[in-house]
């Protein structure tokens, strides 16, 4: 263990969290996350001795933190504090040069070796271009890069970062976290307070999630970033997905959609993502929706179920069964109108088109020419479309569809507050 906290309690006049214990192994990149005021920065300040814990013990390399002198500690551990008071009259390289203070004697003049380390650290942190410029001339994000370079120039075994990506552009945020993850793979250990949970989940090897009651979860990102944990910590409902490339968890806030009005019943036939605009917008407009028949795991099925819309579901990759076909006909019979999104048609979902003859009103999105491209049934789907068009159905763009439906289906009842 390079760093250990044993039953520490931290706080100022009042305890913010108590009884916290954890150990950090070399090479870990630990992200400390949690809502404002839960003690993330306080924990970090305790870890480098700026604000010692009220109770408990912190050990660095197996030795109590309090037994280190300032310089001894600074030779092991580098700190990048949050938004420090301005050091604006220094040049960038002078700020970085302070990193060598714990390694020099007397008045702290630098040697050749120090100069080289400073040079390399600035290059590493992408701050070489700021040489000769005053800190006051740099932007907030650029200053952060200089401070990161300073932390690196301290040649630390343990790196403590307090919201290091503040003020940075997205590309620089990712770069800084990537650099940190890279030096951790080479054996440096990092503990970072981070605000962006998705970035924390992507780059850190381990997360400590705090709530206002203290440590809530400790482990690899996939164990920590869960819907239950985040609801408990931040008090907001989120949806956790997996990053399509890295497989690391990321989260989306669950929207509480404000449904201003209440309108009549609509059935939507979609599938394969064709309903991704249609379904949420009709939902927002206040229609009482039903969707189907769709295969389970289809993106439109997931979308509808996340909005709580009733579905007629077919098993994955299966043709629509007779039973579901019947259910669809019943659903269509009691809907005031049916909206059919332009999707791909094969033998399996042809029954969706066959059931439409019972619709009171029928709207298609797309066009007849487009249907031919999406028809994989040798013309059967296109024929069904043609028949239905003769029977009074019409093609509309999505925008026209929304305005037509809004006109034809006046609100039943005006609500001050959206339901849901």
């Amino acid at each position, binding site marked *: 263990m390079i760093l250990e906290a044993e039953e520490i309690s931290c706080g100022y006049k009042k305890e913010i969290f108590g009884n916290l214990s954890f150990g950090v192994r070399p090479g870990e990149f630990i992200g400390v996350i949690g809502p404002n005021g839960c003690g993330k920065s306080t924990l970090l*300040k305790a870890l*480098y*001795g*700026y604000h010692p814990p009220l109770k408990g013990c912190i050990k660095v390399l197996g030795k109590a933190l309090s037994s280190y*002198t*300032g*310089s*001894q*500690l*600074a*030779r092991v*551990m*580098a*700190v*990048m*504090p*949050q938004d*420090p*008071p*301005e*050091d604006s*009259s*220094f*040049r960038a390289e*002078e*700020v970085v040069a*302070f*990193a060598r*203070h*714990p390694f020099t004697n007397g*008045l*702290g003049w630098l040697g050749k070796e120090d100069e080289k380390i400073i040079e390399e650290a600035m290059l590493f942190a992408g701050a070489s271009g700021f040489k000769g410029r*005053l800190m006051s001339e740099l932007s907030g994000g650029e200053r952060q890069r200089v*401070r990161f370079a*300073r932390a690196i120039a*301290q040649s630390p075994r343990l790196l*403590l970062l307090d919201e290091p990506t503040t003020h940075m552009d997205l590309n620089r945020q990712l770069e800084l976290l990537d650099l940190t993850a890279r030096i951790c793979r080479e054996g440096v250990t990092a503990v970072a307070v981070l605000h962006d949970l998705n970035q924390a989940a992507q780059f850190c090897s381990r997360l400590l999630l705090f709530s206002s009651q203290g440590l809530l979860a400790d482990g690899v990102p996939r164990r920590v970033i869960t819907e239950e944990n985040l609801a408990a910590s931040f008090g907001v409902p989120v949806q956790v997905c997996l990053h399509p490339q890295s497989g690391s968890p990321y989260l989306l806030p669950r929207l509480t959609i404000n449904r201003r009005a209440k309108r009549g019943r609509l059935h939507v036939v979609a599938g394969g993502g064709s309903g991704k605009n249609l379904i949420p917008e009709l939902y927002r407009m206040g229609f009482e929706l039903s969707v189907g028949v769709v295969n389970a795991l289809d993106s439109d099925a997931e979308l509808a179920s996340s909005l709580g819309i009733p579905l007629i579901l077919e098993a994955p990759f299966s043709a629509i069964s007779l039973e579901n076909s019947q259910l669809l006909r019943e659903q269509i019979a009691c809907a005031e109108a049916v909206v059919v999104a332009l999707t791909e048609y094969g033998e399996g979902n042809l029954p969706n088109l066959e059931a439409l003859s019972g619709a009171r009103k029928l709207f298609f999105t797309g066009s007849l020419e487009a249907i031919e491209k999406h028809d994989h049934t040798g013309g059967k789907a296109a024929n069904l479309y043609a028949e239905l068009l003769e029977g009074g159905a019409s093609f509309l763009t999505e925008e026209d569809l929304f305005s037509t439906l809004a006109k034809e289906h006046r609100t039943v009842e005006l609500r001050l507050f959206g339901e849901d």
Partner: protein
Amino acid sequence: MHLRLRPLTVLLILTLVLALTVLLGIRLGAVSLSNGQLWDLITGSPSKTSSILLQIRLPRVVLGLLAGMSLAAAGVVWQGILRNPLADPYLIGISSGGALGAAIAIFFGGLFPWISSAVPLFALLGSLGAVALVYFLAASGGKLTIERLILCGVAVSSFFSALLSLMVVAHSDSLAGLYFWMMGGLSGRTWTDIGLALPYQIVGFFIVLYHLRSLNILQLGEEAARGLGVSTKETIAMLSLGATLLAASTVANCGMIGFIGLVIPHIVRRLVGSDLRIVLPLSAILGAAVLVAADLVSRTCWAPSEIPVGIITALLGAPFFLYLVYRR
């Protein structure tokens, strides 16, 4: 206007300037001496002019040197600790405490003559007492922070100033000397007075120089300094003690000489950058040179009458300070 000259060049120039002002300070005055006469006095036998030189001219120049060095160094320290360019050595009650102490000495000097010769001692005690009170107030009932220190300093200063005004209103005739004391001056001080303040100045300088490297790092902010191995609380406490000793011992002998502690560090920063390991010694040299020169002006330009040197430093310092602000 960040010139960023090489520190050694600046050191050389400032040392030459200081040597020149000291030489002029010794030669010029009510009785001016030529270089030849000066040489004769140094090598020759005691005479009337040599006693002028030794008992009047020389202590005055030495006092100016020490005061200029102390005020400029204390200014660098406070500006470094507070990371505030407007900080000056009198910030936390030193001047008002010293003035009150001096007023007490001058007032009771009318009743007990021995006290009137102890004005510097009383002023020193007043300054140190005020700072001790400020520290006590700032530290009790919470964490000692820079903000609390400044706020308590302002409160204590106002309170002491009010007491002082009360004394002046009630006994304006017996406190006539106080007015001159408050404007700051180097006149009439003896080797004994210098000897009284010197130990405090030596200790003050020692403390400040010992913590100079940490002071430099403190400019990055307390948290960053801590991360670089500076024990911030102890360092700040020791540095403010050192700066207090420097300023209080100066106030005791010279009254309130303004603007040296505020302006000199700014000028030096403009010349050599923000590295306080360089700024502090150079400020001390420039502060000494400027104060000796200002004193020379104050006692020769309107001779035989003399105006307090604090007026000269303020007259020249204030416009120059504004010039620096607007050149930014």
